[in-house]
C-alpha cells in the first residue's frame, strides 16, 4: 500500500470513522433507552449522524446523505424539544441506526443498495417530524452532495474572447465589518484577481489625529473594475460582508476583452489597512486550561503490528536459545550472566505482553452487533427480548474478536429463538413478559470468558434425547445424565429443529459453533436449568499468537500438544490398560475407558507397538467431552510457544496445526488433537468414546 490516492485513503478513513460514529450512536440510543444519558446524549447522537452525513456528502454518497438527512431531521426535532422521546420512537431510531450501518457497509464495499429498501424507514422518520407540523418537513434537502474535485486550475482571465465588463463599485464599511475579522484590503485583493482594478479612497470624513477614534471607520472607496466575470461573481466576493457595509455595484460599459490593458491604469490611492488598532494591552484573559483531552489514539497499519508480534516472537525464541547454550556451556546459574539473562527474560515477557495488548480490542463493538441480532431476531419471532451486556471493555485479540462474531451471532439467535419462551408461556410461568439474554465478558486466569445466557425455559432434555435417538446419535437404550444430554447439542448432525424456523435453523448446528470456538483454541460448556434458562460459557485464549503447550517426544520428534485439551498425564501399567480387540487398546481412568492411540503410529513415524506398559499417556478432553489417550515417549515440559503458521507451500499433514521454534532452535510441530482423533478413526482405530459413558 503506497500513498497513491489521498482521496481513497480519506475515504477509507471515513468508513473507519463511520464505525466509531455508529458505535457512539448505538451507545447514545442505549443511554436514552435506559435513562442513563444526560442532556448531552441527544447531541452526541445527533452529531454522530450529522458527521456521517457531512462525510457522505464529500464522497458523493447520495443515498447515505439522503437517509442521514432525514434521520438527522428527526433527531434535531428531539434535540430542540419539538419531539418527545418515547420507547416507540427509540425503537425507530434503533432500526434507523441498524439500517444506517447497512447503507454504510454497502457504500464501503461499493455494493449497490436499493434506495427502495430505505423508503419505509424514511417515511416513518418523516412522519414523526411532520406530526408536529414542522415547516421543515416540506423543505427539500438543500444539501446536495458535491463529489470533491481537487483540480486547482481556474483562471478568470484565461477565458478568451469574453466580453470585458467595466463595473463601478462604491463601498463603505460599517465598524461591524471589522469585528468579524473581515478586512478591506483583502476584499480589494480578491477583486484585483478578477481583472484590472482601480481604487479611489475617499478620506474626506477623516478627522484630525487628536480627534481620531482608533476603531471608528471614516473611509469609503470607489472602485472601477474591468473584468470578464459577471456581476454575480463580484457580489460573491462581498458575500461575507453583505449587510456590514454600504455597497453598490453597477455595470458601466461592456467592451471587447482584447482591449484589456489599453486603458491607463491609475492606482494613485493607497488601500490603507483599516485594521482596528489593538486597544490598551489588557491582561491576557487566560483560557481555562482544562485538561479534558480525550485519550490520544494512534492508528497503525495492522501489518506493522503483526510484524512487531512476529519479531517479539523471534526474540523470545532467541532468548530461550541463548539461555540453553549458556547452560550447556556450564555457566553457573548464580553467575551474574545468568542473573542478567533472567532479568532480560522478564523484560522480554513484558514486551511480549505489551505487544499483544496492541492487538487487543474491547469486545464492545462485537457486543453492539449482538444487540442488533437480538432486536432483529426477537422482532421476527414476535418475542420481546432485551440484551444485557456486561464487561464490554474486556480486551481480546482483534483476530479472536473477528472470528467470534459468527459463532456468537448463532448462539444469540438460538437463545432468542429457542431459549426464550413465547410471551404467553412466560406469563404462565410467572415470568416477566420480556425475556432477557445476557452477554458478558471477563478475564479469568489468563483467558477470556464469554458467557451467553438466557432466562428462558432451559433445554428440553426429553426432546433432545428423543431426537438424538431418532437420529441414531446415541443407542436407543442409552441412559444419559443431564449434562450428557445437554452436550448432545454439540454433536455433528444434531438439530433440534422439528419446526425449522427461518432464524437459528439455517442448517447450522451448535457443532459448528463448537468447531469455531475450538479453532480459536477455546472451550465451550453448557449449563441448563429447566424453567431457569440456559447458559453457554466460552473460554478463549487472549491471543492466537502464542499457545500454552506441552512439549513431548515421539519417536525422536519433538511435538507440542495444546495444553487446553490435556486433562491429565498417566503412566500406563498392566492394570489400567486393556486390549479390547487386536490392535485396539483402552485405558481405564476414573470416568471409565478411553481409547488409547499410539501417537507415533497415528502420525506414521513407525508401526504401532504391541505393548504399552510403562509408557506415558496424555489424557485429552476434546470438545463435546470426547476423551482419548495419546501415548507418547516422553514429556519435556510445559511452555508458551510462539505459533508459526504453516503456509500453503507445506504439505497439509493430518493432525498438524502449525509449527513453532523451540529454545534450541529446533522446529517442533503443533498438534491439532481433534484432527489426530479424526485421522486415527480413518485409519481404523477405535472411535473415541464419550468420556463419562460407561464402556
Amino acid at each position, binding site marked *: 500500500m503506497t500513498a497513491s490516492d489521498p482521496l481513497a485513503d480519506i475515504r477509507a478513513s471515513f468508513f473507519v470513522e463511520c464505525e466509531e460514529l455508529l458505535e457512539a450512536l448505538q451507545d447514545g440510543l442505549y443511554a436514552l433507552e435506559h435513562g442513563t444519558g444526560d442532556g448531552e446524549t441527544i447531541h452526541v447522537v445527533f452529531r454522530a449522524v450529522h458527521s456521517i452525513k457531512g462525510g457522505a456528502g464529500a464522497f458523493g454518497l447520495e443515498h447515505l446523505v439522503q437517509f442521514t438527512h432525514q434521520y438527522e431531521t428527526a433527531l434535531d426535532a428531539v434535540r430542540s424539544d419539538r419531539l418527545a422521546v418515547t420507547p416507540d420512537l427509540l425503537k425507530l431510531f434503533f432500526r434507523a441506526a441498524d439500517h444506517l450501518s447497512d447503507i454504510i457497509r454497502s457504500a464501503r464495499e461499493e455494493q449497490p443498495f436499493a434506495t427502495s429498501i430505505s423508503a419505509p424507514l424514511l417515511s416513518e422518520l418523516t412522519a414523526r417530524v411532520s406530526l408536529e407540523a414542522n415547516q421543515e418537513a416540506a423543505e427539500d434537502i438543500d444539501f446536495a452532495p458535491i463529489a470533491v474535485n*481537487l483540480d486547482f486550475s481556474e483562471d478568470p482571465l484565461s477565458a478568451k474572447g469574453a466580453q470585458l465588463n467595466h463595473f463601478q463599485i462604491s463601498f463603505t464599511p460599517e465598524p461591524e465589518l471589522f469585528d468579524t475579522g473581515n478586512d478591506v484590503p483583502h476584499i480589494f485583493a480578491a477583486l484585483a484577481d478578477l481583472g484590472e482594478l482601480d481604487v479611489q479612497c475617499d478620506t474626506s470624513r477623516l478627522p484630525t489625529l487628536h480627534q481620531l477614534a482608533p476603531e471608528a471607520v471614516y473611509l469609503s472607496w470607489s472602485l472601477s473594475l474591468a473584468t470578464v466575470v459577471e456581476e454575480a461573481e463580484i457580489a460573491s466576493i462581498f458575500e461575507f460582508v453583505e449587510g*456590514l457595509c454600504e455597497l453598490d455595484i453597477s455595470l458601466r460599459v461592456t467592451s471587447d476583452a482584447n482591449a484589456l490593458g489599453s486603458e491607463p491604469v491609475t492606482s494613485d490611492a493607497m488601500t490603507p489597512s483599516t485594521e*482596528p488598532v489593538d486597544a490598551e494591552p489588557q491582561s*491576557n484573559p487566560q*483560557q481555562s486550561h482544562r485538561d479534558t483531552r480525550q485519550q490520544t489514539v494512534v492508528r497503525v497499519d495492522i501489518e506493522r503490528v503483526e510484524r512487531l508480534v512476529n519479531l517479539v516472537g523471534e526474540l523470545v525464541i532467541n532468548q530461550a536459545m541463548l539461555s540453553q547454550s549458556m547452560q550447556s556451556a556450564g555457566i553457573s546459574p548464580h553467575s551474574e550472566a545468568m542473573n542478567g539473562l533472567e532479568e532480560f527474560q522478564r523484560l522480554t515477557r513484558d514486551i511480549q505482553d505489551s505487544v499483544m495488548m496492541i492487538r487487543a480490542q474491547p469486545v464492545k463493538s462485537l457486543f453492539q452487533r449482538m444487540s442488533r441480532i437480538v432486536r432483529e431476531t426477537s422482532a421476527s419471532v414476535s418475542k420481546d427480548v432485551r440484551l444485557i451486556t456486561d464487561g464490554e471493555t474486556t480486551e481480546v485479540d482483534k483476530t479472536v474478536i473477528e472470528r467470534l462474531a459468527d459463532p456468537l451471532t448463532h448462539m444469540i439467535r438460538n437463545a432468542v429463538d429457542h431459549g426464550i419462551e413465547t410471551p404467553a408461556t412466560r406469563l404462565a410461568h410467572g415470568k416477566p413478559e420480556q425475556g432477557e439474554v445476557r452477554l458478558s465478558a471477563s478475564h479469568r486466569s489468563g483467558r477470556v470468558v464469554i458467557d451467553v445466557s438466557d432466562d428462558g425455559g432451559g433445554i428440553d432434555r426429553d426432546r433432545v434425547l428423543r431426537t438424538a435417538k431418532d437420529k441414531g446419535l446415541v443407542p436407543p437404550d442409552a441412559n444419559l445424565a443431564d449434562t450428557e444430554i445437554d452436550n448432545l447439542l454439540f454433536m455433528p448432525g444434531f438439530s433440534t429443529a422439528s419446526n425449522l424456523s427461518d432464524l437459528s435453523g439455517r442448517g447450522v448446528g451448535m457443532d459448528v459453533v463448537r468447531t469455531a470456538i475450538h479453532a480459536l483454541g477455546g472451550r465451550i460448556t453448557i449449563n441448563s436449568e429447566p424453567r431457569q434458562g440456559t447458559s453457554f460459557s466460552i473460554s478463549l485464549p487472549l491471543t492466537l499468537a502464542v499457545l500454552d503447550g506441552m512439549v513431548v517426544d515421539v519417536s525422536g520428534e519433538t511435538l507440542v500438544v495444546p495444553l487446553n485439551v490435556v486433562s491429565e498425564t498417566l503412566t500406563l501399567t498392566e492394570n489400567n490398560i486393556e486390549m479390547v480387540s487386536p490392535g485396539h487398546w483402552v485405558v481405564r481412568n476414573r470416568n471409565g475407558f478411553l481409547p488409547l492411540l499410539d501417537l507415533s503410529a497415528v502420525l506414521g513415524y513407525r508401526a504401532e507397538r504391541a505393548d504399552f506398559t510403562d509408557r506415558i499417556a496424555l489424557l485429552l478432553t476434546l470438545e463435546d467431552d470426547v476423551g482419548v489417550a495419546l501415548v507418547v515417549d516422553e514429556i519435556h515440559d510445559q511452555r508458551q510457544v510462539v505459533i508459526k503458521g504453516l503456509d500453503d507451500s507445506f504439505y497439509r499433514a493430518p493432525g498438524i496445526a502449525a509449527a513453532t521454534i523451540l529454545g534450541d532452535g529446533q522446529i517442533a510441530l503443533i498438534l491439532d488433537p481433534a484432527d489426530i482423533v479424526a485421522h486415527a478413526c480413518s485409519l481404523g482405530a477405535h472411535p473415541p468414546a464419550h468420556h463419562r459413558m460407561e464402556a
Partner: protein
Amino acid sequence: MSLEILAVDDSRTMRDMIRLALEPVGFTVHTADDGVHGTEVLEDIDPDVIITDINMPRMDGFGFIDAVRDGNRHRTTPILVLTTEAAPEMKMRARSAGATGWIVKPFDPTKLVKALQMVAG
C-alpha cells in the same frame, strides 16, 4: 501565497478533507477536534485563518468563535465557518458571533482556497 490554517472539526474525515484540499496548494494545516481543543491549540500558534465546524462536542463552533474573539491575540484573525446548513439565520448567527465568512459543506476545494485567500488578504 502560503497560509497557516487552523481547522477545528470533530469529524476526522472532514479534517482529512481540509488537509487534502489545502496542503497541496502549500498551506500549513493545523487541526483541532473541538472548540476546547481549538482554543488550546491557539495558545501555541498564530494562524492566518481559522476554519471551524459548528456542531462539535464540549464547545461548539459559536462558543469557539466567542472564545477566540474575546481573547486579544486572535481578535482579528479571520474565521470561516464550515456549515451544512446554508440557512440565512445560520449565517447571521455565525456572523454575530464574529465569524468572517462561511463555507457550505460539502465544500469545493477550489472555493475553499479562494475564500481563505480572500479573507487572509
